Each structure stands twice: as structure tokens, then as C-alpha cells.
């Protein structure tokens, strides 16, 4: 695998980590205080940082680093993850996602925003609560316990990003009183195997302040029995520093899991069991050790150059090792194949750790499969279904004996193909969770912009639906959520005045109902202001001033194109491209949308969508000797028109009267140019369909053949786009039947003919 593939896998993993991060933070926001949740959040950020470092994504690394530092404070119980803290963290998760996307797609990120968040995160890490809220931060823990047992996710031994000390100085409180820490440090052999060295760690440690040291050599065996690559030495260090415990732990950051480390504040009662050790002061100027290769070189400049070179070499070596370990890790994750990259001790150790990490997370095993492959399989199964239908049909035609074993076999085959079809569809089925998670971010952002306090409650996130539907669901949902927060919910003051919780609730629910997925978006706001909607509709000439509309009809007015009740056009909503666009997108998915609203109690939008776009329940009809399929979801009712109900209107328009209302009659055969003149409606059947904008039309067809599930075959992919036709299918008798694009037909009915540009206009 080349670097780009590895990078692609990294980004895929990032997506998973970001989802993990967000759901973890939301759990914490809901009051979950399980240390494992905090660990999972920390791991997610740490993994992203580690991977980003390997690819030199500096922006991502530096932001993740600050984020991680703050999360570490939460992990070590030095920072209480209250609502204010989590608000900052959730926003940071958003920025982290933006940075990841920018790194992948080359987009840009709002730098001001990330800088601002870095400041806020650093403030949190320094124990300052956001917005000077609530009780003072707990004092930096005096005697923190040894680091939590290594969360195995962070097995990467080291980081290519040489952390600069400036960074620590900015992220650490500069005004900590100098205190003396006792550090017990016992490296494991792994530490050396990964190319690290105790001398380097101790050197970095000595830079933090005044240090004295005792080396415990008791474990050192005689020369002939020792393993020269094993770790025998252990150290006790006493360090007087004003940088705080975090800085000390940072020194060991990338060795944390390859050593035993204990940092305690000296003089505490923990020190009673400590025996007095002969400590050697480490008083000298350590600059010498930075200039290792140039130690004997004379001129200062030469020394400096050598230092730089040496650093470069070391950084390169470290980053190479890091990359190698990532190769192994990613190769494992991707293909379960053993890494064929470096087989050095360090990489195999990293791979082992990674394997144990995967075991620890104990998720159900999954594989990544190209969507193309799944689609091909689905296509083939579609063919199989069609083929099976054709086979049954020809058997029925040729064999009149209904009890023959062939018929029984065919029935079994039919059952099997149906089962295969269902299982294949299940492969494409994905939980709606990722879309719902994206919504929580939208809610946060809109809430921030509008100054409202909003809580998003999601239910049924694991409800599964076809991936295509999921992909197309995000946009209409975003519109609706924005509307719900911006228009639906009141300001906190108004809510309090109305006797409600100042925090508004938006509830997003998904569930399966009779073979469809139903998504409900409910807010507990003021409900639709019918007076205002009505007035607006009158102003916009949508209804007559004296029109008598039911509540439901008024509510449905908001789905009209160009309708907006927002007094001012804001960034968020009110451009008038709101709900009509939503309705059109939902309809394009073969879905419906309903609204119900109670003044003072909020509104509920209910969307019902097909579970898949690969098969469709359709009504098979005949039009001018052609067989067509009309999607069942579009049809409200079917009726046999009577001559008395048909009324002419203008030159060529006709209306049909249905229960005291008039509905335009659309001759499908005429629109599709199947016939030159209009057919007599009385000879045919009218299908009452709901079209965009909420209006109803009666589609005239010659006869109804039946209702069945058909496999959708794309016309665009196999032939070319045909105006008025959404797709095609193959029927049991082997004939191709076209699936009507109801909206395009209705849109074209105004001009009585279907031209390509018209259908494009309708689609756009």
C-alpha cells in the first residue's frame, strides 16, 4: 500500500474517532462519569494526534495536543467536566473535525475560531473555569496517583512532532510556586527497544528545574548474565520546579507506557515510607549534552549546525519509526494482514500493543468493503430477482399443472431470492447515528448564534436505513433543525415567562414503521404562529384574504416555495429556501413529510421514507399500450372518474371534481407523447398524487395492472436521462417498464408537453 492509501485509511479512522469523541462527550454532557468514557474520549483525540503527526498535519497536531492536554486534566480528575467545560470541548470536537476535513480535502478552517478555542482549552487546563463561572477550580492535585493503567490505544511509542518547550510554557500556568517533586522512574526494556533512552528523558527532566538523582543499580546482574538490551536501572529523582506536575508528565508523554512512573509532591505524607537515598545533584549546564556529536568540535557555529543536523537526524529517525509502526497498525486495521513493512523490534511491539488494543475495544468484527462492490452485488441480486420472476412466469405459461414439483421448486426459489435480496439490502443498511450526530453539532452552532439554550435528544439512532437514503437525509434534516431552533424555540426569557424550562428541547427520533423509516423532529417551542403564517401567505398572494383554512392547511403553507415567517433574514434561516426545499428533497427520496403543531407546545415534523432506493413498491399501470410504474408513495388514492366529474378549463386544461374540490387532470400519455390527442378520462383511471408544493393532481392512466415491488434500474447509468422518467425496471415477462417521475410530470403538465429543459428546471 502506498502512502496515499495509508492516509486514506487514517482519515477513515479519524472519522470513527471523531464519532467516538462526540458520542463520548455527549455522554459526559448527560452526566456519565464513567472513567472509561473519559478514557475513550482521550484515546480518540490522542489517536488522531498520533496519526496526524505521522503525516505532518501540523495544524491538526497542535490543536489536538492542546485538546488532549485539557482532556488529560479531566481524566486525572483535576477538571470537573461540567456543562460549561463540555460546551468548550464539544466545540473543540467540531473544530477538530473541521481540521481533519481540511487536511483531507484541502479546505480552509476558521483560524480565529480554532485559536479562540485553543485559548479556552488552555484556560481550562490551567484550572480557570469558562466565563468565570461557579466554584474555583480544584487545586492542582498534590499527590496524584500513578498514571492510570495504560489505555492501550496510545501505544505509539513516540511522536515525530518534537514538542517544543514553548508550547508547555504557554499551556502550563507560569505562576505555579516552585515545588519539589519526587519522581520514581523505572524504564521497561521496551523503552530502549523503541529507540528511546532514559538519558534523554532525564535530560529533559533536568531542564525543568533543579534536580538531584539516585540511580538504583540493585537489579543489575553480573556482566556474564546480563542482557545488554534489557532495562536494569531505575531512578529516583527529586526535582524542584515551577512548571508543575503536568510538565513533568509531559516529559514522559511518549514513554508513558514503557516505564513505571510515579510523580509525587515531596513532603507529603506519602513520603513516610521512603527511605533516605543518597541523591546526586545534577547541577551542571546541560547544554553540552545537546551538542553530543559536536562535543569536541571547536567553533560555536559549527556546533550549532551540528546540533541542528543531529536534531534533524533524530527527528527523522523517530518519525520514520512512527510511520513504520503506523503502517503496521493501519495495515492490520485495514486488511488484517501482517504488516510487511519494518519488522524491527519497535514496530512489532507497536503492532502487538495495537492488537491488544483492538481486542480491548471488543467491537463486533467488521470489514471495510468498497461501496462499488456492494452495489454490484445488489445489482446482481436485482437481476436474480427479475430472472426468477421471468422463470416463474414462463413456467406458469407453459405448464398448466399447478402441483408439479417444478412449481414447488420455483416457490422455494422465490423465497430464497427474497431472502437473499433482504440480506443484501441489509449490507447497505446503516444506522442513522452519524447523521443524527451531525445534527447535534448543528444544534450547538445555531444555539450559539441565536443565544438560545437548546438540548438535542436523539432516539433510535441505531435504526437502519439504506446508505443512499442516509446520505440524502442530512441536508433536509439540517434545514429542519435550523428552523426548529431558530423559529420553533423561544428565547430563554420568553420560555421562562411562559413557565417553561429556559433550555429548549429538540427531539429527533427514528423508528421503523411498516417497512418505512419514520423520522420525527419535535421541538417544545411556541408552535407555529398561525396568524402570522396566514398573514404572510395573504401578503405573498398564496391565499385569498378571506380564505377559510383549517389549522392543518395553514401549517402546510410553510412548505410553499418562497415562504418565510422570519421578520429579518438571518444567516441561519429565513432566506425562503427553507421548508419547500426540505419537502422537495424528502419527496425526491420517495418520502412524505407532515407537520403538526400545538400553539405553546411546539411542532412535530414527521418524515416517512423508504428503507431503500434499490427497490420500490410501485403501481404497474398501462398508458397507451405502454407499461409504466408509478411509485406507490406518491399515490394518495385511485378513482374511476365519472363523466359528470370532468370539467373543461381554458383551452385544453381539464379538472376533475373530487369531493367538492377541483383538481387538475394530467394525461400521462399525452405528456409523454405516447399519443397525439387527449384520451377520454372516463375510459381510464385517475391516480390522485401529491406533488411538490402540497397541491394534488390527478394523473390519468388507461388501466391499473397491479401493485408490486420492482427493482430499480438506473436509466442514466444504462441509457440516458429521459424527461419525466425517474428510472426503469424489468418486469416478470422480461419487458422493461419505465418508472414515472411524478413531480416532473406534474411540473410539465402546466405546459402540456415534457421538454428536457422543463424537467431540468423542475429538478433544479
Amino acid at each position, binding site marked *: 500500500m502506498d502512502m496515499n492509501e495509508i492516509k486514506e485509511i487514517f482519515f477513515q479512522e479519524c472519522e470513527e474517532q471523531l464519532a467516538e469523541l462526540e458520542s463520548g462527550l455527549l455522554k459526559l454532557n448527560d452526566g456519565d462519569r464513567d472513567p472509561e468514557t473519559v478514557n475513550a474520549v482521550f484515546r480518540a483525540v490522542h489517536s488522531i494526534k498520533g496519526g496526524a503527526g505521522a503525516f505532518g498535519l501540523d495544524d491538526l497536531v497542535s490543536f489536538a495536543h492542546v485538546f488532549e492536554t485539557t482532556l488529560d486534566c479531566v481524566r486525572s480528575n483535576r477538571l470537573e467536566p461540567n456543562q460549561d467545560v463540555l460546551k468548550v470541548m464539544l466545540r473543540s470536537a467540531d473544530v477538530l473535525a473541521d481540521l481533519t476535513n481540511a487536511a483531507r480535502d484541502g479546505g480552509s478552517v476558521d483560524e480565529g475560531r480554532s485559536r479562540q478555542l485553543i485559548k479556552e482549552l488552555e484556560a481550562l487546563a490551567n484550572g480557570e473555569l469558562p466565563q468565570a463561572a461557579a466554584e474555583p477550580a480544584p487545586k492542582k492535585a498534590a499527590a496524584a496517583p500513578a498514571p492510570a493503567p495504560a489505555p492501550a490505544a496510545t501505544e505509539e511509542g513516540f511522536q515525530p512532532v518534537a514538542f517544543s518547550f514553548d508550547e508547555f510554557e504557554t499551556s502550563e500556568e507560569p505562576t505555579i510556586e516552585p515545588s519539589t517533586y519526587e519522581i520514581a522512574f523505572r*524504564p521497561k526494556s521496551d523503552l*530502549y*527497544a523503541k*529507540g528511546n*533512552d*532514559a*538519558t534523554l528523558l*532525564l*535530560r529533559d527532566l*533536568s531542564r525543568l528545574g533543579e534536580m538531584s*538523582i*539516585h*540511580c538504583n*543499580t540493585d537489579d*543489575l*546482574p*553480573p*556482566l*556474564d548474565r*546480563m542482557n*545488554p*538490551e534489557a*532495562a*536494569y*536501572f531505575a*531512578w529516583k529523582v527529586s526535582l524542584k520546579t515551577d512548571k508543575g506536575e503536568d510538565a513533568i508528565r509531559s516529559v514522559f508523554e511518549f514513554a508513558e507506557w514503557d516505564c513505571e512512573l510515579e510523580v509525587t509532591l515531596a513532603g507529603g505524607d506519602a513520603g513516610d515510607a521512603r527511605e533516605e537515598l543518597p*541523591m*546526586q545533584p*545534577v547541577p*551542571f549546564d*546541560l547544554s*553540552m*549534552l545537546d551538542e*553530543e*556529536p*559536536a*562535543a*569536541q568540535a571547536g567553533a560555536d557555529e559549527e556546533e550549532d549546525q551540528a546540533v541542528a543536523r543531529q536534531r534533524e537526524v533524530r527527528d527523522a529517525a523517530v518519525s520514520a519509526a512512527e510511520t513504520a509502526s503506523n503502517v503496521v497498525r493501519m495495515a492490520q486495521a485495514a486488511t488484517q494482514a501482517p504488516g510487511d513493512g519494518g519488522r524491527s523490534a519497535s514496530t512489532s511491539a507497536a503492532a502487538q500493543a495495537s492488537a491488544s488494543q483492538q481486542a480491548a475495544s471488543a467491537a463486533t468484527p467488521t470489514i471495510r468493503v468498497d461501496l462499488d462492490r456492494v452495489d454490484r452485488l445488489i445489482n446482481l441480486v436485482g437481476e436474480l430477482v427479475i430472472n426468477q420472476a421471468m422463470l416463474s412466469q414462463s413456467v406458469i405459461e407453459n405448464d398448466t399443472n399447478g402441483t408439479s414439483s417444478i412449481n414447488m421448486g420455483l416457490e422455494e426459489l422465490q423465497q430464497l431470492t427474497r431472502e437473499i435480496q433482504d440480506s443484501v439490502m441489509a449490507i447497505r443498511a446503516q444506522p442513522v447515528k452519524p447523521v443524527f450526530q451531525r445534527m447535534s453539532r448543528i444544534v450547538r452552532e445555531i444555539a450559539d448564534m441565536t443565544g438560545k439554550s437548546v438540548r438535542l435528544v436523539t432516539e433510535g439512532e441505531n435504526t437502519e436505513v439504506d446508505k443512499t437514503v442516509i446520505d440524502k437525509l442530512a441536508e433536509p434534516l439540517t434545514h429542519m433543525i435550523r428552523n426548529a431552533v431558530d423559529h420553533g424555540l423561544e428565547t430563554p426569557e420568553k420560555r421562562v415567562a411562559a413557565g417553561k424550562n429556559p433550555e429548549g428541547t429538540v427531539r429527533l427520533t427514528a423508528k421503523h414503521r411498516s417497512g418505512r423509516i419514520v423520522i420525527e423532529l419535535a421541538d417544545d417551542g411556541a408552535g407555529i404562529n398561525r396568524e402570522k403564517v396566514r398573514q404572510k401567505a395573504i401578503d405573498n398572494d398564496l391565499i385569498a384574504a378571506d380564505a377559510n383554512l383549517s389549522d392543518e392547511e395553514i401549517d402546510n403553507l410553510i412548505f410553499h416555495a418562497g415562504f418565510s415567517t422570519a421578520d429579518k433574514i438571518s444567516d441561519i434561516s429565513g432566506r425562503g429556501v427553507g421548508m419547500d426545499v426540505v419537502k422537495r428533497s424528502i419527496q425526491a427520496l420517495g418520502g412524505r413529510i407532515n407537520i403538526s403543531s400545538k400553539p405553546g407546545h411546539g411542532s412535530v415534523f414527521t418524515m416517512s421514507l423508504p428503507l431503500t432506493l434499490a427497490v420500490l413498491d410501485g403501481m404497474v399501470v398501462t398508458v397507451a399500450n405502454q407499461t409504466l410504474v408509478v411509485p406507490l408513495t406518491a399515490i394518495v388514492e385511485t378513482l374511476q372518474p365519472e363523466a359528470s366529474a370532468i370539467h373543461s378549463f381554458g383551452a385544453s386544461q381539464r379538472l376533475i371534481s373530487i369531493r367538492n374540490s377541483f383538481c387538475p387532470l394530467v394525461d400521462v400519455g399525452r405528456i409523454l407523447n405516447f399519443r397525439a390527442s387527449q384520451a377520454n378520462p372516463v375510459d381510464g383511471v385517475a391516480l390522485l398524487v401529491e406533488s411538490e408544493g402540497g397541491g394534488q393532481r390527478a394523473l390519468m392512466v388507461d388501466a391499473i395492472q397491479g401493485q408490486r415491488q420492482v427493482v430499480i434500474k438506473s436509466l442514466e447509468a444504462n441509457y440516458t436521462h429521459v424527461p419525466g422518467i425517474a428510472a426503469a425496471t424489468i418486469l416478470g415477462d422480461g419487458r422493461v417498464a419505465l418508472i414515472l417521475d411524478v413531480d416532473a410530470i406534474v411540473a410539465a403538465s402546466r405546459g402540456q408537453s415534457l421538454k428536457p429543459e422543463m424537467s431540468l428546471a423542475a429538478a433544479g
Partner: protein
Amino acid sequence: MASKNTARKTLKLAPVLDLNEATALHEKLLALRGGAVAIDASAVERVGALCIQVLMAAARSWEEDHSSFTFAKVSDAFVKTTQLIGVDFAPLMAKEI
């Protein structure tokens, strides 16, 4: 190599005594066992904890053998590193420096 040799042997240490060098140094020292040894650390630019462990183990083994194990020459980097990590070779150096 095991033959008793009263003549002091000198072992010159490599400039970089890292993970890779630890095993080599270990083998060299094992081969010198039995006779007095003077370590020449004058060229040492960088020394890791593993090699210091080997040297320390050697020093102890030589002491057990009642043989002489000294550091004839040392570089500044070598001394500073041993001081940094709290390993005291000074008595072994003092004799010769």
C-alpha cells in the same frame, strides 16, 4: 583471550554508545574478562543508559575478580551523562585522571 595477561588492555569506546552498540560492547567486555582493563571513553559523544549498564556491570565483575577496571580517558559528554543519570564512575576515573 582467556589467557592471563598482566599487561593492561585498553578498550576504546565508540563515539555513539546507543542501543545498537550495547550488545557489541557487552561482547567486547566479556572477551576481555580476566585481565586489567582501561576504558578509553575519550571519543564518546553520546552514551545511552544501556551501555552505561553494561559498563557498570563490567566494573562490578572486574571488582569481583580483583582486577583493575579503570577509565583511562573520558570525554566531557561521557562524564556529564553519567552524572546526569546518577551513576558514579568517579572512583574508577579518579585513579587515572
